[in-house]
């Protein structure tokens, strides 16, 4: 009897959250999934999770394009400006962008965006906040740099020294010539 | 394969340098805009072609 109860509770623990979540939010797809399964998913409501990159492209009509990158692929999301304003950090080389979860209608070739494969967002949630990632200087590079600049300096110094020598020689030649001229006169 | 003319032309260029100096900018503007115009005409032609084959022939 105890065993049965244990199995039953386990089943409830495992199954119930799944059914609840399944009914409340649409499944999360990767962008690559969206592209490869585009014919089946066309027009359905889906959720995408990824990093907002580079910058939002704000258009005049109160909407913006935000590009979302998950791993290898990126997708354009068309959203209202108030949704866009929730995103604070966009990914560049100096910033890790906000990870957002966007739920919206997926279009394989959105007629309003001239046939683009895109998402029209209904809701947006910032899952992880981004942060700045300033470039740090690698100490190994500094060492290499020091050695290289030393070699370059030596080369330059050698060149300058030789040039000086040459001009000096020329000067001496000139003086000798002058002396000869004077003597001849 | 015979793009040689560029080189032939170059010989004459240096002789009449002062005379063409004023005309160079005008030539560049004319040349550049004529290329742009040509490309735009080409695009217009492609749009027409696409429209014909996309709508008329498919229906």
């Amino acid at each position, binding site marked *: 009897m105890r065993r049965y109860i244990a199995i039953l509770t386990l089943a409830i623990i495992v199954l119930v959250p799944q059914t609840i979540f399944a009914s409340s939010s649409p499944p999360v797809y990767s962008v690559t999934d969206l592209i490869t399964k585009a014919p089946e998913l066309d027009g359905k409501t889906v959720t995408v999770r990824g990093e907002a990159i580079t910058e939002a492209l704000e258009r005049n009509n109160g909407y913006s394009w935000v590009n979302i990158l998950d791993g290898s692929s990126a997708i354009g999301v068309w959203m209202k400006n108030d949704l866009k304003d929730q995103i604070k950090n966009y990914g560049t080389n100096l910033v890790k962008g906000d990870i957002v979860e966007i739920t919206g209608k997926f279009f394989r070739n959105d007629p309003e965006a001239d046939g683009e494969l895109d998402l029209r967002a209904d809701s947006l949630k910032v899952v992880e906040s981004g942060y700045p990632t300033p470039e740090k200087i690698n100490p190994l590079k500094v060492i290499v740099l020091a050695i*290289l600049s030393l070699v370059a300096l030596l080369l330059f110094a050698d060149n300058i020294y030789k040039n000086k020598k040459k001009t000096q020689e020329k000067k001496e030649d000139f003086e000798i010539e002058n002396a000869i001229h004077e003597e001849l006169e | *394969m015979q793009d040689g003319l*560029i080189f032939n032309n170059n010989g004459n260029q240096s002789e009449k340098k002062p005379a063409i100096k004023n005309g160079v900018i005008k030539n560049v503007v004319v040349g550049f805009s004529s290329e742009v115009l040509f490309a735009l005409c080409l695009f217009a032609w492609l749009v027409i072609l696409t429209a014909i084959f996309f709508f008329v022939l498919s229906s």
Partner: protein
Amino acid sequence: MLRKLTKFDFKITMYYTGKIILGLAFTMVIPLIIALIYKEFDSAMDFIIGILSSVIFGLACMKFMKTDKPPNLFQSMIIAAFSWIFACAFCSIPYYLSGHFESYLDVYFDLMSAFTTTGLALIKNVDHVSNALNMWRHMLTYIGGQGIVVLALAFLIRNTGGAYKIMVGEAKDESLEPSITKTAQNIWIISLVSLFVGTTMAAIAAYYDGLSWDRSILHGSWMFMSAWSTGGFAPCTQNLSFYHSYAFEIIMCLYMVMGSFNFALHYVVWKGNPKELLRNIEIKTFVVTLSITTIFVAWGLSAAGIFTNLNSVLRRGILLVISAHTGTGQMAVYANQLVHSWQPLAYMGICIAMMLGGSAASTAGGFKALRIGIFFKGLIHETKRLILPESAVFKMTFHHIKDQIIESGMVKMAGLIILCYCFIYLFGTVVGVACGYPLGQATFESISAGANVGLTMGVVSPSMPAILKITYIITMWLGRLEFLSIFVLVGSVGLAIGQAFKGGRK
């Protein structure tokens, strides 16, 4: 007999190679400045290391190999080969140090892709690449592209066969023509004026469509360089579709088409003869082939039934045709979309467009319009000759800058080169299929590499087998330098090695 290589040949080669590398060091200053402006200190270090090592190499070469003599034609060919190898090595320093590549082979692939203005990329995580490295990637396509044109024009100065005969067969010590320098200057003037105007146009479009002003200038200049030199790189994973902007796409198309024109044609038009545009055989051929491939794609897409309005077809389909035909490789659709939802007819149209390519003596790849034009005219000529009585004498002419008579040598040459291209397309496909990729994708990717286009159906990725990477590197190189010059270069390098061995034995 082949000309013997002397110690002086080596000396003069290294001297001029050093000069070229020194020049390259100066171009690295631009990305360095960008790095400092945007506080990308690690990238700045990469570029300083790059600059210093190039300067050291250049200065050392110029110091120890000093000569005052100008190189002759044969020596300048070897200089081209050597400087190519060394330039790749020094340009790769910032690439390699950036940490965005899995291996040196990937770095080399991207460099070759940049120098040949192909546009296939193995760089990882493009969206997080520093502005400095992005600048450098796009500058390399731009510089590489114009450099190649100079080289192409230098080779095409005589009838293609002639130059090689002089060089390899008789080995006359002919001095390099001073007008080549003049030509190089003209090419740079045309390119720089276009760079200025094009960047401005693209930046305005990008700014209008929502990018911040400094980023729109950067992205505008990068995308312009990529389009004008028919490269195809982009600072974003999504390539052209990142911008979601019709105006931006039209501007890019404009410069793709202009970038695929012959520089001799540019020169004539810019010297005040715009009518040449309507008479030139290459332009005529280009318009005809572009129209045919457009029809294929429009028809194919209409049969596939995925697009409903005209603008969709234009922005997704026809943009791709233009990009493929000019050998650029910027795209506003996803690689996977091509695989999963495009009709075979549309796919074939794109493949044919890629094979044909733009004009000779431009940065475009493929067969080139001039060859196709001459080949077809030759075909008509032969047919006429067979139909008409033997006593009839007639000649066939074509208009390229001036009216020229088609000789059978020209037709033969055009046919041979076209055949060589077909061979590398086939070669790449065979290797791709052998590596386990589907035939359609392997063909597409192979043509894209061999014709220096840069469109992709998803085969090119850091995870593809090394043998395929090497194959594409070779086909890109062969396709870019149009076979003969490479055969000559390989021949002369082989000669040098052979002589080194001989010298050693003595």
